[in-house]
């Protein structure tokens, strides 16, 4: 039973990986082509930061960060709640 699961899992993932890599060849581009990032880099000076990652995280896409903070907030309260759970 155990061996069967191993073989099944290995078989499935091998087939999956094989089809994936035969379908799509991933390679690095020579220059940055993404429109969004080019826009962000162009307007970086308006944010007052020169670190593009910080600028995206806290200005261009600050709403994502709000969601991230809420997830952390929910998890901490959840861990507290589950840890103090009574029988």
């Amino acid at each position, binding site marked *: 039973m155990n061996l069967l699961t191993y073989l099944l899992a290995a078989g499935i993932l091998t087939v999956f990986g094989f089809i994936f890599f035969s379908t799509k060849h991933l390679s690095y581009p020579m220059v940055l082509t993404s429109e969004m990032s080019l826009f962000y880099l162009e307007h970086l000076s*308006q*944010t*007052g*930061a*020169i*670190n593009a*990652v*910080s*600028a995206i*995280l*806290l*200005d261009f896409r*600050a*709403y994502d*960060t*709000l969601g991230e*903070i*809420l997830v*952390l*907030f929910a*998890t*901490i309260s959840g*861990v*507290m709640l589950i*840890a103090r759970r*009574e*029988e």
Partner: protein
Amino acid sequence: MTSTIVRTTTRVMLPFIIVFGIYVIAYGHISPGGGFQGGMILAGAAILLILSYGFDKPARFMSHLQSLESGGVLLFIFIGSITLLLWLPYLADLGIIPILNIIVAVKVFAGVTLIYVFIARWELPHD
């Protein structure tokens, strides 16, 4: 866990770790780093402290951590709401990246430390 070597190393290293964390937060907008990374480093410092000195000494800061954590969320939303009430687009650019970095750092520091403490101090009811 609380051997002399660990304690001494912690005592020597801790100021440097904290200063490095604050540096990463404060210079997050002009150098590699940011609020999240710095907050994680600070949380690492706090976890190191707890690991080497046990829970007894840091225990009294725990309630402060919780208010820091929910205060962080409130502040983040508050800054957004001010811009909203002034009829500006939500979370607009007012050069607030350093301030938001600090808020995120405080939040992440408090949050990660709390998660660690709650999992590590697990006290299951006796059955």
